């Protein structure tokens, strides 16, 4: 494999029910910094049906090029046609880097694609950078149960492939003056055949936890000592207009459902405020929240890891502090209410 024949950064765009999903724009924010550093083009490839009127948005959000494959068989994610089409596109255009979001789609198609192309893939990166001289993609992720971070490269194969967590980066601001090229690719019908068939979809709104879209996340961990104590976190979250998250420990103890779990094996969040209560801050947890705008921690252990990533921390007893905080916030709310 001649590495120098591979140039450019690609992101995998994603659509759901025919609408471009925001993870596509988050990926462009990741891809833009890599492409600029390497001095190459940033392209998005997006597969779906009836997307033509939306793809310009990908340019406004940072893409230089958009490859669109539009076909009814691509309306919903299906491994066979997606893998065939993406393999063909990679072989034709040879990007050096190809990144996708770690959604169920990304986490399914990327290992399939990497196995077909016999190249390296790194899952759930929390950091992506490039070494300009060697043009290697530096893929950083929590490793070995989340105790440490590892930086991984794909030295001799291309494209270097990686996934990043949804919400791990904010999309770039929309810039409607950006210019780019949109290329509609056509393929032989055979390419769209699939061994599997989608028979239906059972919508379940509860499958989506509000925690991922919340501006404020109030998260609890082992320090809460009992599932019932999550009640005060829900109260606090309501006062702050947010949602409740939890560490893996709290979920494993059965204190709160998995949909609230923040971290490597749960959700990634980037709220304006992340309030960590009784959470020690294992690397695996930090991987899911360290990009939050403001981090506040309450923990009685002065050596807790969480304080190292906090903008504000209180070393103390959460059972004293949280009720006081709730009381003070209620007073403030009450005054605001009177003022209106």
């Amino acid at each position: 494999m001649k590495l120098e024949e591979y140039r450019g950064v690609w992101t995998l765009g994603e659509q759901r029910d025919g609408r471009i999903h925001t993870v596509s724009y988050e990926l462009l924010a990741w891809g833009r910094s890599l492409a600029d550093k390497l001095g190459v083009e940033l392209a998005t490839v997006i597969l779906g049906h009836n997307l033509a009127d939306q793809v310009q948005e990908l340019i406004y959000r940072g893409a230089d090029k958009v490859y669109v494959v539009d076909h009814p068989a691509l309306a919903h994610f299906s491994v066979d046609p997606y893998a065939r089409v993406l393999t063909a596109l990679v072989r034709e255009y040879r990007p050096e880097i190809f990144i996708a979001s770690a959604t169920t789609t990304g986490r399914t198609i990327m290992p399939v694609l990497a196995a077909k192309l016999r190249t390296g893939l790194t899952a759930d990166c929390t950091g992506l950078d490039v070494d300009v001289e060697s043009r290697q993609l530096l893929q950083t992720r929590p490793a070995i149960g989340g105790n440490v971070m590892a930086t991984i490269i794909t030295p001799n194969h291309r494209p270097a492939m990686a996934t990043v967590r949804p919400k791990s980066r904010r999309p770039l601001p929309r810039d409607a003056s950006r210019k780019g090229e949109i290329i509609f690719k056509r393929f032989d019908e055979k390419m769209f055949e699939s061994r599997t068939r989608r028979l239906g979809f059972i919508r379940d709104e509860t499958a989506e936890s509000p925690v991922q879209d919340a501006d404020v996340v109030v998260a609890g961990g082992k320090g809460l000592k009992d599932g019932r104590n999550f009640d005060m976190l829900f109260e606090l979250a309501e006062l702050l207009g947010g949602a409740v998250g939890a560490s893996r420990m709290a979920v494993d103890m059965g204190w709160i459902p998995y949909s609230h779990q923040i971290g490597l094996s749960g959700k990634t969040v980037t709220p304006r405020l992340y309030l960590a209560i009784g959470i020690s801050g294992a690397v695996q947890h930090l991987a899911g929240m360290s990009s939050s705008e403001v981090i506040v921690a309450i923990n009685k252990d002065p050596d807790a890891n969480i304080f190292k990533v906090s903008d504000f921390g209180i070393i103390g007893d959460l059972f004293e502090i949280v009720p006081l905080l709730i009381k003070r916030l209620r007073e403030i709310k009450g005054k605001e209410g009177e003022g209106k």
Partner: protein
Amino acid sequence: MEGAFGPPPDRRDVGRMMRLAVLVKQVPATDKVKIDPETGTMLRTEMEAVINPLDLYAVEEAVRLKERLSGEAEITVISMGPAMAIEAVKDAISMGCDRGYLLSDRRLAGSDTLATAYALSQAIRKLGPFDLIFAGERTTDGETGQVGPAVATLLDIPVLTYVSKIEEIGDGRIVVHRAIEGGHEVVESPLPALLCVVKEINEPRLPTLSGKIKARETEVPVLTADDIEADESMIGLKGSPTRVVKIFYPKITREGEIIRGDDPEGAVDRLIEFLRERGII
């Protein structure tokens, strides 16, 4: 949750034994793991290990399927790892699998997800054919979830990820639910296929005493790279496209204001002030 005693699946034409395989991995039991500073890979020899907790759901689902087929199935457990990983295979046998194999060879050490998937796919070719292969969603050590889809790709069979329910099986086909964003997708696939199952699919059983005795008495053959006719350029470090180049403890990213809560009232007042400064309240 529908369990072992749920309604039997549609099993028209399942006249012969179904051949099921389950892929399992042994993972560190504790968070205290040692790393080889030279290669950046885990030192697997000095630690306590267990069967990957998420693989238990794959084992359980295979055993339930066998029960629902009135026993007309046989389940083969396949693992890859050091000699001690035989315990993970035995754990699966104690839950109701029939036999197991461990793929273990110095030359496999340092395999990344692609090299691992290749070795497992070779073992499956050797031990198969199988109608259905079960895998967990991911391991709790590597947390990549890449091996299952890669194995299916190398075997050129369909992969169904995030499987939360087997709706029906028979006539050489399977219908499953996939737990994806916003709900459950119902998908039909021909057999053979590989399923990566999620936690919500079942509640894994504890091994019975007789299961444990059976596991103790069952011999688990060890397969080498030669036994599976592996291409040496595709296994171990040599066959791994990815390389760990650095292992480090995450650096301190924020220099925040940390105060003592000895005076809780004062601490909360300061916190409220801070949240106001940042425009949050």
